[in-house]
């Protein structure tokens, strides 16, 4: 029997200033059965929602008015004022060049989705966030989901041992 995801149990926040892009994500989530979906245009509005409601997953555009998506992510992950440092964030962006992906990854993004995207790509990111949660890593310079997705054999010294 296949495992299923009941999207009605999850609350979403879409942060996107582009009306059409936000609508596409909203329609997709609504079709999947999500009943609690909030839409805002700016990070400041997003923080207001995150402080007043229980949100499980944030879907955020990189290019936003005022504070951009990366700054928003930085505050979420690293600020003492963050409403929830562990919240999964799916970053949507038309900046799909490698340097953008690595920048977002190093700031603690959970999933990255390059635009233009299709339904399959969006769904796979949602599944990954919900069904395959990753452990978090906290170092002096990074706080976010484990960036090592694949477990490969490594013969070198273990520099990630737990604190003694």
């Amino acid at each position, binding site marked *: 029997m296949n495992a299923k995801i*009941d999207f009605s149990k999850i609350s979403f926040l879409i942060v996107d200033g582009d009306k059409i892009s936000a609508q596409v994500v909203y329609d997709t989530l609504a079709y*999947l059965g999500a009943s609690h979906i909030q839409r805002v245009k700016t990070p400041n509005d997003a923080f207001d929602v995150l402080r007043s409601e229980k949100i499980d997953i944030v879907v955020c555009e990189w290019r936003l008015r005022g504070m951009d998506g990366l700054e928003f992510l930085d505050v979420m992950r690293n600020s003492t004022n963050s409403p929830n440092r562990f919240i999964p964030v799916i970053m949507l962006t038309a900046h799909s060049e490698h340097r953008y992906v690595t920048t977002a990854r190093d700031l603690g993004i959970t999933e990255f989705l390059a635009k233009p995207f299709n*339904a399959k790509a969006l769904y796979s990111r949602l599944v990954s966030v919900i069904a395959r949660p990753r452990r978090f890593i906290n170092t002096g310079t990074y706080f976010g989901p484990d960036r090592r997705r694949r477990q490969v054999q490594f013969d070198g010294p273990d520099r990630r041992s737990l604190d003694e």
Partner: protein
Amino acid sequence: MTHYDWGSGAIVKPEEPMKKKNVQIIPAQTDLKRRAVNFVKGFDINLSPEQLEELEKVVQRSSETFVRDIGKDLMDCRRMIIQALGDKTKRQDAVATSSDLAYSVKALGGTFQYPLMTQIAKSMENFVADRTTANEKQLLVIQLHIDSLYVILAGRVTGFGSTVEQATVAALTKLAERYEQPRE
């Protein structure tokens, strides 16, 4: 301890013990998984091709809105560019609006089966990136990009088009490279 190696005849210094980084590993948050993943209700984790097709139809629902809204934005932006050609004070706004429009079209064109628009918008976005203003020739380059986008949209040219359309994309990119300087 430093010692003399009789085999190689060298003084050997011991390796510095590696400093362990202070790393805190926090177990994965499984609350979402516990709440939403089950075997009874919802969508399969691995969707069938038919289910994916249905989901793609949902995405395509906004296709008409895209054509209507972007069509209007292209016309508005073109108007701003033409005004900016005759009025230097309007150039900053025209360039900023062009940049926003280029990003939107680049982001959404391919989603709605207009990858050709994404290609042209990418060229336009590169051209206007980090500019606060543009000279007359540069404004004309932006206008040519906008006109091309409008033609594709009005003609509903989905997919990557024929060799003619691809040649147009290449020509626009070359034109943008030629008039790239000065970048102010």
